[in-house]
């Protein structure tokens, strides 16, 4: 079980994240939702110790998570990467083996097989020799998904995986997320948009965390997506096609 206890981040000048606490069981897929600048990425980085936290702790199976990062696969936002970097698809996916191989070793049969399988699973094996800068946004996201899969991690964190991807990639993302959940992995997925099929995306989640510099609500998507919670998070009345006549407090009804 992943236990997050009162983790907070203080960047100064009011920026950061107020103490956040939650627990995630193996086989749970948890969404993190909130407007831009709500601290979704900050929270993910804080869980892994990538930004200095001002308090709290993160434990996985009773031990601090930052001491067992080999069990974690983190997929950063696509916009954080320089896609003009001289590397092919296969090279980027192969980075997954860096930690497993350890220092000084280049590759092994087992890691090569895992890398190929991961690429086939997200339909990018045919693109393996292509330079990453020549891929579409969706294909680039699948490269990172394959890298995360090849790591064979127990906890997977995806930062804004749906941003700027095509429908094919969106379908693959949902399929792979569902498979990973069935394999007993812990998934944390942040997004300010849940794909073109918002309702379908949200209903596939076991739990949703609604964030805006603090944890506004946590529970099943149905419990969290109330008009009041969304107003607190987004500061405005939430209107979306699947809300029906817009009169119900429970947006799933």
């Amino acid at each position, binding site marked *: 079980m992943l236990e997050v206890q009162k983790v907070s981040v203080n960047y100064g000048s009011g920026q950061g994240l107020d103490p956040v606490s939650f627990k995630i069981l193996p086989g749970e897929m948890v969404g993190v939702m909130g407007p831009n600048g709500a601290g979704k990425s900050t929270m993910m980085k804080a869980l*892994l110790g990538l930004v200095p936290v001002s308090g709290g702790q993160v434990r996985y199976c009773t031990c601090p998570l930052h001491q067992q990062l080999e069990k974690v696969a*983190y997929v950063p936002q696509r916009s*954080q990467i*320089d896609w003009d970097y*001289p590397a092919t698809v296969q090279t*980027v996916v192969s*980075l997954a083996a860096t930690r497993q191989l350890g220092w000084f070793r*280049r590759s092994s049969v087992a890691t090569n097989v895992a890398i190929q399988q991961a690429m086939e699973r997200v339909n990018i094996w045919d693109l393996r020799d292509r330079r990453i800068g020549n891929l579409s946004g969706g294909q680039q996201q699948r490269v990172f998904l394959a890298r995360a899969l090849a790591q064979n991690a127990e906890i997977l964190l995806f930062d804004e995986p749906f941003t700027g991807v095509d429908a094919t990639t969106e379908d693959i993302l949902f399929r792979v997320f569902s498979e990973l959940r069935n394999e007993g992995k812990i998934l944390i997925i942040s997004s300010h948009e849940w794909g073109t099929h918002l309702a379908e995306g949200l209903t596939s989640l076991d739990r949703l965390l609604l964030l805006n510099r603090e944890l506004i609500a946590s529970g099943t998507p149905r419990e969290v997506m109330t008009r009041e919670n969304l107003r607190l998070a987004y500061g405005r009345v939430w209107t979306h096609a699947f809300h029906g006549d817009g009169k119900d407090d429970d947006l799933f009804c």
Partner: protein
Amino acid sequence: MWSTLISMLIEPLQSEFIRNAIGVSMMIGVLCPVVGTYLIVQRMALMGDVMAHCVLPGLSIAAFFGVDRSIGAFVSSMLGSFFVSWVRSQSRVKVDSAMALTFSTFFAIGVTLITLLKNKLDLDRFLFGDILTVTLNDIYATAAIAMLVLGAIYLFYKELLYYTFDATGAEAVGLPIKWLHLGMMMGITLTIITSMQVVGVLLVIALLIGPALTAYLVTQELHHMMFLGSGIGMVSSLVGIYLSYYLNLPSGPAIVLVSSSLFLLMFLFTTRSTFFKRTKSHY
């Protein structure tokens, strides 16, 4: 015709100083582009320039105390790179401004120290290098540093690849990115100090960036960029020295001008191909 060409190639080799110059410049021709590759992919091309300028205070202080000048240069240059990182991390100041401030400040400190400490440093040699005064000991020292830096890059290639491509991802899998950064900065500094006496501080950056950037235009992988960059670096060094011998040009600038001409050729070649592809796709 062939015999004339061959005799033209052999004639300079009869002088020992030319043989030494070719030896050391070929080694630097390999080393600089490999290290420069990391500067380019990290968008830190000007960092090499900063670190090259930052060696001056160290050179002056080392000369004053009678310590090996390379040690002074190394410490001073590393301090410069730490200063850039520190200013960047502690304030809103962007990296380009931090670099501009750092290198001008260190260079000013260096020039002031040379006057105050009454050093007998030859500033012209520091700025423009003098490849034709290279001794056998310089060749051994360059070979040792080249082997050290290239060996470290070979050993830590996959970790450095991860770090330079996706620093956050590398940290997330538990790679010691601070040590990787420090190691990379040390490698860059050692390369600069070694190259300095050959082509001078002002032209080090050109050899660090030029050949690797030419390779960047046509390669798909980081290690391809390193190999092709090294090849271009060696050709630039060799052709530069021959041009310098026959046309009586200063050797450092000759090497750099060959390297820049090769970039221009490759640039025109690649943009022309892209232009034709685009034109064809319109019809």
